[in-house]
């Protein structure tokens, strides 16, 4: 056992903030009413859900009536993609997405493909950036939807969302943005951006797991994928997860504070410290993704002549939690589709590592991670036939 524990996998999930947890607690055993009931218990629960909706809407500059709560980010992505195309399929059967999406989007498009839609997948450049010129070229008269992530979960690249939104608006195409990694971490306003739909997830911003949200601009119509009691304007039936929704609201409030008080800048400073240290002290270690246009909490690398899983497990043994897009961590034999889409060779992509910082990450944590990574890379390279043949 190691004494020090450094969690650097906040892209995977975050701890529920203490204040968020406290806000949630009464809604399990005290305020347990069903928000749809007419009695006092129900009215109190309804009020809590409404307040949470206001807070989540405030985070992204939306009106509360434009926020639909779901059972997580994946469900919100599915609702946006399947629900909007189902509504518009008579207008056209062509849809567009990108090569670096999360599986929740990628596989929803795969499902559309099976339903007879024509799917175009936009490429990215070596920094994982989508080109809006490519988007313009891909649009056809029968295009009905474009879906693109706000920021990539593996390499952190932030996409030209506003530019893409303008193109979609001019061409009359619905634009969905998977904002799971960006919401609460990158300041933005859905009105200024001009997007039609945007996915959020509570557990990526110090809220609970199992709660997500879909921003649906006023006037955008989607067909529900969960039918039943007609909750959430009939777009997501099922008794509201009151405690979870309250937690999402509290997490959104926390995010608004963090975006305003300089916390995000401090996180970016620590991220840059880690990037600088790793790329300067470790030979053949390079940053993946965009050098500046990237998530403030995410540092991702490829380490030459090494395989990701072996580095992860050695880091884990030193009390450090990180992640990798190598084949061995995915359960398949292929490395991450994101790294391959960026044009990285298989052998390079196998050596990927991702560190995602959190609100409690300290400079000491950064130094601890860098020192351990340096040691682990040296130890594993002593075992690697690829490394020796170079030297």
């Amino acid at each position, binding site marked *: 056992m190691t004494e020090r524990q450094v969690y650097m996998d906040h892209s995977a999930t975050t701890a529920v903030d203490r204040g968020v947890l406290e806000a949630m607690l009464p809604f399990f055993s005290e305020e347990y009413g069903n928000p749809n009931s007419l009695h006092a218990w129900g009215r109190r629960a309804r009020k809590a859900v409404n307040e949470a909706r206001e807070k989540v809407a405030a985070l992204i500059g939306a009106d509360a009536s434009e926020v639909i709560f779901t059972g997580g980010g994946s469900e919100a992505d599915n609702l946006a993609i399947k629900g909007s195309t189902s509504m518009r399929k008579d207008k056209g059967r062509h849809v567009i997405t990108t090569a670096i999406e999360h599986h929740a989007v990628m596989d929803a498009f795969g499902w559309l493909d099976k339903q007879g839609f024509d799917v175009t997948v936009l490429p990215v450049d070596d920094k994982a950036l989508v080109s809006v010129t490519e988007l313009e070229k891909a649009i056809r008269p029968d295009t009905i939807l474009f879906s693109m992530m706000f920021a990539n979960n593996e390499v952190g690249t932030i996409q030209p969302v506003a530019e893409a939104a303008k193109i979609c608006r001019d061409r009359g195409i619905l634009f969905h943005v998977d904002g799971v990694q960006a919401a609460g971490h990158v300041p933005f306003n859905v009105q200024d951006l001009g997007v039609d739909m945007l996915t959020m997830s509570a557990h990526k911003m110090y809220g609970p797991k199992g709660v997500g949200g879909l921003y649906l601009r006023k006037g955008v119509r989607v067909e529900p994928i969960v039918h039943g009691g007609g909750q959430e304007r009939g777009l997501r039936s099922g008794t509201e997860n009151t405690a979870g929704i309250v937690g999402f609201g509290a997490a959104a409030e926390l995010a608004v504070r963090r975006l305003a008080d300089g916390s995000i800048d401090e996180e970016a400073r620590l991220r840059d410290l880690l990037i600088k240290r790793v790329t300067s002290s470790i030979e053949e270690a390079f940053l993946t993704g965009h050098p500046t246009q990237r998530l403030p909490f995410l540092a991702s690398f490829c380490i030459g002549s090494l*395989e990701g899983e072996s580095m992860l497990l050695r880091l884990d043994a030193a009390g450090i939690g990180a992640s990798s897009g190598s084949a*061995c961590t995915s359960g*398949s*034999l292929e490395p991450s589709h994101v790294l391959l889409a960026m044009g990285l060779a298989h052998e390079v992509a*196998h050596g990927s590592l991702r560190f995602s910082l959190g609100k409690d990450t300290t400079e000491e944590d950064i130094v601890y991670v860098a020192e351990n990574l340096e040691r682990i890379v040296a130890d594993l390279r002593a*075992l*690697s036939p690829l490394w020796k043949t170079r030297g």
Partner: protein
Amino acid sequence: MYTEKVMELFMNPKNAGRMEDPDGVGEVGNPRCGDIMKIYIKVKDDRIADISFETFGCASAIASSSMVTEMVKGLTLDEALAISNKDVVNALGGLPPQKVHCSLLAEEGIQAAIEDYRAKQKAKSGAAAPKS
């Protein structure tokens, strides 16, 4: 996901590192798939007198390399050739299904090293024959 034995050998692999002047070298796998195993052997009286490995790959590839080198050390070449990937998996206390190919590399690595040794011997005796 991994057994204690796999983790133990992954953290502290035995017979790791490059060998100077080996009698035989076998290299299997390819970097595209994320696994390369290189086995070095020294042979004395038809037995594996010394062995080491270098492996690029995941924890199970490194543990499989370590395990197979321990298993074949001291064996005759034919005995070593009879070691199968199943023997390696069993000795490790099991591997997750998607990692079984790592143990196959271990089996193939030993075979490749022995083949290389035998080919070199043959070349030597072949080259020596006309002179004698």
